[in-house]
């Protein structure tokens, strides 16, 4: 079955299960190979080593294999637009529920497969170099190996998510990527960014996992509602039943979409569940790029697009989703302006861009949303990986200083803090140029990828949801501003720290994936140009989503967004580069914005607010339940006072008056009577034989007398 058809018409659909098996094989090899090597060494006295290179190669080949298979699906789909459903195994057959492990190949799932495997493969290769350079690596090959096992695990889970043919299979992948995300955020679980002992990273991992639990709860409720009202988890069956449900119970349909939105908010970091994503930057940079920017966090967008037939039926649902996305986009953008950590800026930018996508799919602009998802995967992966390269460069500079003539090594140096950077374009030219391309793409400057996709979202919003359009335009302005601020602070001006002055460019294994991603970020927009005849991506997705409204280029919308982006960039230049920042200088925005900037800087105190209103309230509730309800009420009062005390009283009563008084006396009276009687009777036993003989005689006479006289 799995190898079966590569028939004459070029169908590669049968290969699709290998998109999951390939990374699983990769991770199994990486798990067991070190043991095998050790066994070989002990048995045959060889001196083999399962090296970093082998680990990285196996993992990257596994990821590369998924990309090849995804490409083959693309080729097959080119001839068979309708796609295919490839059954692999029976899964759950209980009562009316018949659920099989089916893979679904259509243009939507294949798009996701290509993005995940393509970007994933590049990031695997990048990680070979990055993880080796990480200051915390310290030649711990076992941990290096574990990192790639987790990465392959993530690819496998993500592939299940995007290729599943039912909501339940999607949920399996959904939880799987959550697990991989947890494992990778907490990868350096016992140390902070500098390798000092700390639980910050494992706390960040827990925060991500638990916040996602809240979202998963929403997803599960939505799934249960779908099953109870439409009788299936399978996509086609559910979508066929949806219009009838919309007619009979529109409120249930709205409920399904709202609970699904909670799931989306968890996984795709939307208000109010976005708080885990900035903390997730505790993970190694390739993880931030792969999981927390390019792929996993877009699972929510994929879910809404996949459920398009449900969302399209309810205008209220669309309105809610679009508004949540738009507000998230603006809110996160304001926070990004006030951050100093290079990765935190990108993290909030990711939340903001995810807001764009969610708003787009919420409005029903599924093509625009998916288009932005793809281009964002390119340029945000590029930006994160470049940021990783910058961090490595600074670490190298710092290392150089520590081993040079500068002896004072006591100061705490954060290689991710933009206030320590400056002027890096001279030391790290490759990183600088790819970073510029990523920035231009993100800021939406013509003709880079982000311009086309963001513009499509804005255009659709201006037609259907004006309030979303205004919010998103403001967010786009801030996007260009914070990216300008970041570039000026990192790459221009003068070095504000000696480490930055001595930074060194990263090796080729790190920069080559960057260059490939830069090319994709520059050219990615051309797969869906807003001119007649060039809507390739839209027509591609039409095979899955049905008829799609294709919009042309609106010069007003495109012009306004480009103009705003340029104004924002110029404004950021005016603030941050006209007089380059010096070491220790406060942010130039601090003075004019005052309290507003304090809010941005501190993420609007949302974490603190959650801590105070939710976590503390929850802790107080648990304390109340534990101390007052459980201990004082149940243990002290109910158990001890009511049950135990009454029981003791009852047993005392039963023991003393009842048992001792009644039962014992009764038996004593009986015993006394028996004793008295027997005392009397024993006197008859004289011991004289003649007495016994006499009584025998009397007895015989009595019996004979009776027989002769009475019974006659």
């Amino acid at each position: 079955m799995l190898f079966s058809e590569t028939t004459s018409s070029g169908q590669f659909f049968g290969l699709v299960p290998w998109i999951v098996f390939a990374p699983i094989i990769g991770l199994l090899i990486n798990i067991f190979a070190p043991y095998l090597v050790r066994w070989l060494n002990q048995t045959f006295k060889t001196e083999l080593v399962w090296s970093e290179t082998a680990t990285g190669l196996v993992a990257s080949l596994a990821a590369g294999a998924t990309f090849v298979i995804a490409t083959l699906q693309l080729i097959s789909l080119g001839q068979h637009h309708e796609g295919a459903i490839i059954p692999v195994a029976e899964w759950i057959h209980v009562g009316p529920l018949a659920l099989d492990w089916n893979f679904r190949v259509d243009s939507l799932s294949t798009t996701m497969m290509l993005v995940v495997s393509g970007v994933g493969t590049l990031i695997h290769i990048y990680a070979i170099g990055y993880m080796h350079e990480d200051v915390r690596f310290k030649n711990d090959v076992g941990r290096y190996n574990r990192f790639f096992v987790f990465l392959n695990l993530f690819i496998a889970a993500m592939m299940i998510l995007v290729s599943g043919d039912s909501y339940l299979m999607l949920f399996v992948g959904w939880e799987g990527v959550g697990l991989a995300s947890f494992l990778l955020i907490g990868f350096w679980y016992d140390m902070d960014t500098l390798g000092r002992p700390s639980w910050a990273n494992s706390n960040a991992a827990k925060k991500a996992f638990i916040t996602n639990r809240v979202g998963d709860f929403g997803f599960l409720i939505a799934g249960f509602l779908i099953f109870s009202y439409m009788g299936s988890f399978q996509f086609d069956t559910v979508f066929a039943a949806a219009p009838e449900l919309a007619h009979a119970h529109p409120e249930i349909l709205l409920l399904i979409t709202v609970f699904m939105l909670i799931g989306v908010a968890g996984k795709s970091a939307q208000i109010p569940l976005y708080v885990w994503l900035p903390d997730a930057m505790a993970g190694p940079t390739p993880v931030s790029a792969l999981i927390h920017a390019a792929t996993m966090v877009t699972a929510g967008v994929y879910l809404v697009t996949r459920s398009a037939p449900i969302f399209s039926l309810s205008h209220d649902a669309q309105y809610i989703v679009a508004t949540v996305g738009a507000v998230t986009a603006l809110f996160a953008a304001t926070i990004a302006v006030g951050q100093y950590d290079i990765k935190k800026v990108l993290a909030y930018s990711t939340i903001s861009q995810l807001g764009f996508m969610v708003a787009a799919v919420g409005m029903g602009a599924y093509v625009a949303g998916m288009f932005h998802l793809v281009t964002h995967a390119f340029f945000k992966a590029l930006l994160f990986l470049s940021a990783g390269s910058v961090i490595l460069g600074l670490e190298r500079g710092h290392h150089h200083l520590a081993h040079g003539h500068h002896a004072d090594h006591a100061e705490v140096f954060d290689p991710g803090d933009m206030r320590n950077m400056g002027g890096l374009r001279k030391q790290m030219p490759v990183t600088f140029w790819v970073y510029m391309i990523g920035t231009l793409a993100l800021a939406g400057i013509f003709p880079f990828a982000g311009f086309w996709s963001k513009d499509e979202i804005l255009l659709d919003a201006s037609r259907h949801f004006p309030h979303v359009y205004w919010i998103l335009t403001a967010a786009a302005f801030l996007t260009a501003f914070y990216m300008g601020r970041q570039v000026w602070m990192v790459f221009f001006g003068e070095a504000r720290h000696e480490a930055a002055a001595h930074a060194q460019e990263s090796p080729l294994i790190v920069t080559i994936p960057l260059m490939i991603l830069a090319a994709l970020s520059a050219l990615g927009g051309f797969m869906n140009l807003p001119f007649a005849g060039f809507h390739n991506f839209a027509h591609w997705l039409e095979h899955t989503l049905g008829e799609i409204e294709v919009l042309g280029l609106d010069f007003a919308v495109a012009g306004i967004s480009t103009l705003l982006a340029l104004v924002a960039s110029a404004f950021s230049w005016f603030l941050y580069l006209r007089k380059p920042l010096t070491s220790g200088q406060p942010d130039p925005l601090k003075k004019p914005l005052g309290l507003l900037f304090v809010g941005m800087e501190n993420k609007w105190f949302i974490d603190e607010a959650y801590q105070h209103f939710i976590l503390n309230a929850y802790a107080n509730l648990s304390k109340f339940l534990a101390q007052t309800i459980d201990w004082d009420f149940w243990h002290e009062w109910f158990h001890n006072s009511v049950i135990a005390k009454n029981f003791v009283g009852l047993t005392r009563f039963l023991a003393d008056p009842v048992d001792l008084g009644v039962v014992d006396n009764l038996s004593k009276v009986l015993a006394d009577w028996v004793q008295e009687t027997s005392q009397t009777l024993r006197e008859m036993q004289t011991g004289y034989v003649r007495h016994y003989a006499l009584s025998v005689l009397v007895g015989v006479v009595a019996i004979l007398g009776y027989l002769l006289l009475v019974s006659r």
Partner: protein
Amino acid sequence: MIPVTYYIIFSAVLFSLGTLGVLIRRNSLVIFMSIELMLNAANLSFVAFSRIHESFSGQIFVFFIMAVAAAEVAVGLALIVTIYRSRHTIDIDGMSSLKG
């Protein structure tokens, strides 16, 4: 021919004498002899009835009783010898250790 009533009366007198002997006398050997007297009183009645009814079953009974009496005497005398060895008396009133 002597009427059977005489035999019966004689038998009853013998039986009563034997019973009195058992109840009154203290010497174990005498008690034994009294028991023999009672048995033989019974034998006498059997024989008398046997003669009246012209049947031999009464006489057969008598033979059985004699055999049993002989056996009884053998056992009884052995008991008395054993008791005498331990107590040096055969006074029946001395043997009251089972009294209550």
